[in-house]
């Protein structure tokens, strides 16, 4: 028995898939990494389908939550209930994991997600001023969504573009050397 609170489901995978051709590693081809995909309205059937696509993996909870977050834009109470039931975990346990990770939202973001890097390399090139500019132009605080629902502004710590700072990620795409004017242009705020 494994020393894990989610032992029942995990053990099943550990034993069951050792003989399978690809040992529980096989991944779904439908995996979406960009936040740009259209957000579907929540449906329990769709949620159960997504869980079923990923639950065969070892320790499936993160891939499952990722799939739900990509599809519905968030992992809310309704999704958590489905996951808990499908994976034989408590809702508290699933909530505990979902709430630990910054990527998993409790409500859907705006149409676009704009993430401004605040880590050291970008600080050295004026990230703080860029954050202040972005917040001022959009009229939101970090983590907020504009009143028209168009843009969610977030901080991020490092996009791996540290030689071309400051860096911004918009709907999964990275932009470098972003000054105030370029930011306005990228976000569609240009004059």
């Amino acid at each position, binding site marked *: 028995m*494994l*020393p*894990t*609170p*989610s032992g029942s489901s*995990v053990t099943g995978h*550990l034993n069951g898939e050792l003989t399978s*051709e*690809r*040992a529980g*590693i*096989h*991944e779904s081809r439908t995996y979406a*990494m*960009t936040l740009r995909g259209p957000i579907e309205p929540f449906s329990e059937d769709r949620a159960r389908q997504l869980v079923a696509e990923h639950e065969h*993996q*070892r*320790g*499936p*909870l*993160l*891939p499952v*939550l*990722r799939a739900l977050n990509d599809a519905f834009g968030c992992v809310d109470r309704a999704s958590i209930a489905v996951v808990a039931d499908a994976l034989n975990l408590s809702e508290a346990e699933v909530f*505990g*994991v979902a709430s*630990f*990770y*910054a*990527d*998993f939202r409790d409500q859907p973001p705006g149409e676009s997600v704009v993430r401004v890097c605040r*880590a*050291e*390399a*970008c*600080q*050295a*090139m*004026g990230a*703080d*001023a860029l954050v*202040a500019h972005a917040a001022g132009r959009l009229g939101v605080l970090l983590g907020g969504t504009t009143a028209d629902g168009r843009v969610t502004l977030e901080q*991020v*710590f*490092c*996009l*791996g*573009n*540290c*030689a*071309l*700072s400051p*860096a911004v*990620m918009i709907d*999964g*795409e*990275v*932009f*470098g*050397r972003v000054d105030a004017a370029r930011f306005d242009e990228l976000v569609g705020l240009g004059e």
Partner: protein
Amino acid sequence: MTTTIFVSRDTAARSVGADAVAQAVAEAARSEQREVEIVRPGSRGLLWLEPLVEVATDTGRLAFGPVTPGAVAELLAHLDHPEASPLYLGATDELPWLARQQRLTFARVGVTDALSPEEYVAHGGLVGLHRALAMEPRDIVSEVTASGLRGRGGAGFPTGVKWQTVLDTESELKFVCCNADEGDSGTFADRMLMEGDPFLLIEGIVIAGLAVEASEGYAYIRSEYPAAVATMRSAIEIAYERGWLGQSICGSGRRFDLGVRVGAGAYICGEETSMLESLEGRRGVARAKPPVPAIEGLFGKPTVVNNVLSLAAVPSILADGAASYQALGTGRSRGTQVFQLAGNIARGGIVELAFGVTLRELVEEFGGGTASGRPIRAVQVGGPLGSYIPEHMLDLPTDYEAFAAAGAMVGHGGIVVFDDSVDMARQARFAMEFCAEESCGKCTPCRIGSVRGVEVIDRIIAGEDRDANLQLLEDLCEVMVDGSLCAMGSLTPQPVRSALQFFGEDFLGPREDGTMVSRTRGAEG
């Protein structure tokens, strides 16, 4: 005659317009009825020159950069006499910035099509794997131990010793976990390697599996790296098709399976035990050690956890022999380190060199000083948990032990440069703020200490009871170092203490007339 033109598809290159340049090349070629093949490899790592365009000739590739879409037509017009182009840089391999480097791990990055298995093999790929397949596991481990390779993720633990522990621990099931949760600011080599030469990482992981008798592996890649995730997934698919992964690696009868797992925006999951928790489907909370992951790791099984660059160094060690790797470097720091020049730097990018090169050579000779043109004031090495090093100490050689003796760490070789407008009290405050934001919360010194750290530094900056608060901050740092469960809490004091030690004047706070003594020229200066 078809002209082959290379435009990088690395995230950094694309972040400054490489896609638009590639498109402009295609359009210009079409309108001029010129036969052009566009190849999109990783980046050569001369990131300040991106978008860099290379043109294949009989005598090697010629480099042009930085290229804008508007300059493409002019560039193509000059192909017969490239010197006449204002963007012409010379033969790529002869550019001093590249020619001076010792590229082992990054030898193919930017050169080959990242997802071409044929090019991978044609450029020396799989030689190490084939040699490993003919060796006993213990001999592979001995080879890696003899090479002197130490963990490139930051801690510098000898890779061979870790592997030996996993090999010696009996279990039907063992794992290899590649830590690709490259969350430290100033680091991008893991990302560039995964985007630019994913087969090298796969080969290194498979060799690790053979060495420790593990049959299954995971690459845990952070979600902030969507292109690395996509490239690794495609490369793994291709590797299965080629029989480099799966039931019988290269027909040897030995099995290894590999998959990608994506992080979810938690910095702490770059800590190895947190990463294992996350892989198991739980909150990324650090585990107490012992037991070490080599004995009880993923799902309680013996597990190799290595950084991307540690594993990517392995194929060349097997291919060329431990002695040739061991011959590079200084002291107990052997082989090459992939330095990453970042932040306020004129010529940022990848510099792979044997250990021992000084910070000053890296930052001034390669990096060309600051991007702003102002004097360098501080350099942070080894990520957000690394020390701030003042300009007068830049002659420090890059060597694990020399850095440790100076109270700093080489870490993963990420180097972030700051000019003289930096306010080091704010940087110290940020170190604590970052720790508070990203702490997993399991141990008190890290969870509470970081919040208290922000508060105390705010009081010091505000000039409240400064001496007592400075003492309190030092006490707090001591508790965090001694009492934290993992490196997050125990290393956060490094940037704080180094800022205090070398840049104490920045903590002097407001003068009596209310103006700041500190040297901030930023937004709040």
